């Protein structure tokens, strides 16, 4: 059947088929790259980026320290996730939040003016929310 179709196709038909294949290939590659994004944690204090943690490259649990507005903020990172381990604040809400691995829900330490955002290197992930109500 396919041989018969092939034999009856004209030059214009070949162009249409080639274009279709090209679009499908580009679209497929784009989708694949979206779903395999590398994750990083960006740590901001007073809105200034003070630390970048390459979450996707971490093999062992690693601790970092940044100077928050209230004192040191101890951050712990594992492969593709990050959390605040220790900080000085009345309610410790950002420690309570636990591990963050999603790009749409930052860890916010209000008294320390510290924010940790998980970001997909090179752009957003496919299933990302536009925003989250906390």
């Amino acid at each position, binding site marked *: 059947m396919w041989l018969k*179709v092939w034999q*009856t*196709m004209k030059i214009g*038909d070949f162009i*249409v*088929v080639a*274009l*279709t294949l090209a*679009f*499908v290939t580009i*679209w497929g590659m784009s989708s694949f790259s979206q779903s395999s994004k590398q994750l990083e944690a960006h740590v*901001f204090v007073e*809105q200034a980026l003070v630390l970048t943690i390459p979450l996707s490259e971490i093999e062992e649990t690693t601790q970092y320290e940044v100077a928050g507005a209230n004192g040191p903020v101890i951050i712990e990172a594992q492969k593709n996730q990050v959390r605040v381990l220790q900080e000085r604040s*009345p*309610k410790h*809400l950002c420690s*309570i*939040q*636990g*591990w*963050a*691995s*999603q790009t*749409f*829900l*930052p860890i*916010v330490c*209000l008294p320390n*003016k510290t*924010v940790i955002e998980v970001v997909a290197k090179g752009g957003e992930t496919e*299933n990302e*929310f*536009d*925003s*989250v*109500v*906390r």
Partner: protein
Amino acid sequence: MKRFMSGIMIATSIILLTACQSAKSEYVKISDQFFAMDTYITYTIYAPETEVESMQALMVEANALFESIDDLANRFEEVAGVNNIATVNKKAGKEPVVVDEKVIEMVELAKQTEEQSQGAFSVVLGPVSDVWRSYQEGERTGVPSQDELEQLRPLLDSDQLIVDTAENTLYLTQPDMILDLGAIAKGYATEYVANWLEAQGVEHAIVNAGGNVKTIGTHPVNETFRIGLQDPDNLSSVFGSVQIGATSVVTSGDYQRYFEYEGQRYHHLIDPQTLQPARLYRSVSVVTPNSTLADVLSTTLFMMPQHEGETFIQQYYPDVAVLWYDLAGNISMNPQMEELFTLGGE
């Protein structure tokens, strides 16, 4: 053969349409963040490529606007050059205070909601909130006795808050009364700033002030915005989302500000009737275009048993979508919310 070629053409058209949709990303997603009103505020603007710089400048101006409303609603300290809520409280029992029209708007909506809800909402709950705060912040240990709280009840009569809309004045007639706009000011500021951004030409944007999200226009590619609702039982995740156009989403929950004592959680949402933290839900979410109203309603509904809340909404705000997340993790919603809500994270 013709049928085969038609198939090819249809497939090509679909792919071309997809490509065209991506081409709409001539909008550049820009964002800015800052701290105000004891929360983390983020702006996300989808700016036309040619207007990125000017819209970045708008976000800086928006920050200043947000802070100016924060100053007006501040009840803990007076701010030079303006009469704010701290000024009104300082003059309690002494004299009326001229305030900004924005403050009058907030107080009027608050008083109206208190009347409609038969006392489930109050803006003069300050004396009780202060007692709870002293425990929450560790100045005192344990929890306040009911006797201590009940002694404050004479100060919680909102009829003693006199609003003069002609003169733009507020007057607390009893000394020691405390006006507190904490349950409305963030919603008001979010609404005000979003409207201002829209008036400056912003067509697609999100203003997120913690529990308050306001969207401007539509998503430039997907048409609707997908807004996640944080999971009270797993703060690193969401339990569902709402798919919305230009509107606002506000959640009141027991998981952002609280302390624990003898295994019991004491959060910041105090029921004006029992004077205790309300214990009916983990969170209540509201979707309605006006963020100020959404803020007031989410707090009010947090205090009301669900059947009362449903009646209240049907009677006064029939278009408002509401979702209740109860203490056992059960989710229920009204028909308006069913049209918007999708269960599940990721």
